[in-house]
């Protein structure tokens, strides 16, 4: 089945940590810090120097928006997402980890490792915050505070919630990926058969995949066009809605089905070993196939309304890649957590419903009251979905808003994968 398999436990971990494992720990910590930095940036955008923008005196919404856009995506925004910040984080963390690696005692328990990783993160946060404070005096103290708080919350969640994050890491991420690549044939066959058996039973099978989002958007269109008018800007509401709900469908399907992707295969997991992340990638693959069908349906409806494919469609692969990375990252978290904690699937479906209405799908981003915009800026799906809609309706998207979802997607994908692999060996015991 595999060339070799070696498992060891935390008890026998007196042997020195492999460079690969050390690198993985470094990357995990770095991703956590970058995620925290991004969240701090998002807060900063909405709350410059801690004061919410008061748009109430401006009567015309378009003037308000213009003002807000300048404020939000102008000079300060670019300053906050300058590359230097991330370089500082990477270097500080590298030094902290190297020093801690040198001074750490030889014998370590599972607890000591989790605690050490946490300590390394907090130390790196403090030092980086000090560097930001001295090096960029125009940065608000509040933003540095946001950064420290977000880093604390994220690292607490990631480090402490996975008891075995570093304990049973006998393989590096690269070795795991190589193993996944060796199993690509299984993945191909599995997706092929699952998709075929889902759609080949009846002709209505494929039809339903197209009809379902269409009917949903027609129902929502009926409900919301009364409130928002049948035309948004100068875009017909159906086009407006479909251009957002179709890309949202992949995220929705991935995360909702992701809670079941490992759980529904527990019988198989208990009988044979294969890299478990295949189950997650399998679900994502099925979601992508669904997306393919709905995308074609959407193009047809849009064309009927006069919105033909345009030159901006070259941006679609990039947008899709960001969405796939983000969805996969969240799927790794929810699929592993659903096995370990059975309360997760219902929580996730509630959260996704909430997120659906917090994402500008049935309404334009512009119609959100300004005081709530801080919530929207933290939702990485909001700029992504807006960019999709802009592309489909022939408007050039604001690419600078995509910085946050892109980097967060990479951070989520990496930490999610590490989290999944660190907990994978527990699955069979949690049946």
């Amino acid at each position, binding site marked *: *089945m*595999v*060339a*070799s*398999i*070696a*498992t*060891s*436990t935390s*008890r*026998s971990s007196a042997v020195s940590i492999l460079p690969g494992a050390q690198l993985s720990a470094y990357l995990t910590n770095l991703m956590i810090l970058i995620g925290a930095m991004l969240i701090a940036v998002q807060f900063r955008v909405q709350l410059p120097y801690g004061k919410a923008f008061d748009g109430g005196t401006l009567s015309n919404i378009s003037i308000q928006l213009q003002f807000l856009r300048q404020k939000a995506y102008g000079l300060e925004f670019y300053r906050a997402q300058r590359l230097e910040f991330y370089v500082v984080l990477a270097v500080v963390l590298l030094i902290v980890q190297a020093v801690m690696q040198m001074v750490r005692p030889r014998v370590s*328990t*599972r*607890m000591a490792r*989790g*605690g050490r990783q946490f300590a390394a993160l907090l130390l790196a946060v403090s030092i980086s915050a000090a560097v930001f404070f001295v090096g960029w005096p125009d940065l608000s103290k509040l933003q540095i505070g946001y950064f420290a708080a977000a880093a604390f919350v994220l690292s*607490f969640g990631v480090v*402490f*919630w996975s*008891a075995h994050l570093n304990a*049973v890491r006998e393989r590096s991420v690269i070795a795991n990926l190589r193993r996944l690549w*060796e*199993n690509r*044939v*299984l993945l191909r*066959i*599995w997706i092929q*058969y*699952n998709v*075929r*058996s889902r759609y080949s*039973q009846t002709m209505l099978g494929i039809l339903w995949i197209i009809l379902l989002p269409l009917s949903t958007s027609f129902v929502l269109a009926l409900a919301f066009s009364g409130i928002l008018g049948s035309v948004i800007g100068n875009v017909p509401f159906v086009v407006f809605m479909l251009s957002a709900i179709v890309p949202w469908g992949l995220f929705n399907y991935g995360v909702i089905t992701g809670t079941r992707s490992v759980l529904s295969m527990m*019988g*198989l*997991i*208990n*009988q*044979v*070993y*294969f890299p478990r992340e295949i189950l997650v990638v399998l679900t994502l693959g099925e979601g992508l196939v669904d997306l393919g069908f709905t995308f074609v349906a959407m193009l047809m409806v849009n064309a009927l309304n006069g919105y033909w494919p345009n030159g901006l469609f070259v941006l679609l692969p990039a947008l899709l890649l960001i969405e796939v990375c983000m969805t996969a990252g969240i799927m790794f978290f929810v699929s592993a957590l659903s096995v*370990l*904690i*059975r*309360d*997760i699937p219902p929580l996730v479906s509630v959260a996704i419903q909430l997120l659906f209405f917090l994402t500008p799908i049935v309404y334009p981003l512009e119609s959100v009251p300004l005081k709530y915009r801080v919530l929207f800026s933290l939702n990485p799906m909001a700029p992504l979905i807006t960019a999709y809609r802009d592309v489909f309706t022939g408007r050039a998207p604001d690419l600078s808003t995509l910085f946050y979802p892109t980097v967060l997607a990479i951070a989520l994908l990496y930490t999610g994968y590490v989290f999944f692999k660190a907990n994978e*060996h527990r699955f*069979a*015991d*949690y049946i």
Partner: protein
Amino acid sequence: MTDMINPAESPVIVAENVSKRYIQNEQRPSLRHEAGQMLRRLIGRSTETSAASNIDQQFWALQGVNLSIYAGESVAVIGRNGAGKSTLFRILSGITTPTTGHVAVCGRFATLIALGAGFNPERTGRENIYLNAAIQGFSPRQIAPFLDEIIAFSELGRFIDLPVKRYSSGMTARLGFSVAVHILPDIMFIDEVLSVGDAAFQEKCMKRIAAMKAQGRTLVFVSHSADTVRNLCERAIWLHKGRLMLDGPVDMVLEHYRALLSESSTESAQIEKVPG
């Protein structure tokens, strides 16, 4: 793929001080439990202490098992129900990890624990051959030359192109077994699955396994049948309540095993009935 495997000097399966503990309150995790664990980890108390402190809630399925199996050996694992045989198999095949100790397995292996694991009921038998082999790590290209042989062995004939959901449980098991014995792994874990189909099919299975053994493949299997054990294996390992009692030539181990069984009470009646 069919060429002989040279028995090597170094063992292909090594287990060092392998123990497996199951904790009952961890079997049914909840958000409340997990949050408690998280807090305990934060304030510096290891999760080990909380779980291990309650002795009633833990169960050692295996304790300090040491084992080396060399290439070409065929080894039977015997023992009463609940002796830890299946847990040992699960650990060796990487399905679960030991609580303490270390396991190493070298070479391509296949597990015959439940036949037809991962069959897609909507797809045909033929397609499921490819799927089942792929789950065990064998690509369609590796399987294609043996396809006719697999179908012939399973005795499914024209039913091979029917969806597996229409198969009887016997047909499904026969197909699963045929795939497993034709993917030709270096090491094969077989867990009490030799009671497939009718007597004639069982006979065929035994012959096939004997042929695989003759090719120099390593076999490790669990069986309650003393006949099977004696026919196929030269070495036996006796597990009792998670501990390794005896490891040696099959006749010697069986003799001691039966001696203990006859000493113990009526619980052993089912095993004593087995002739041999």
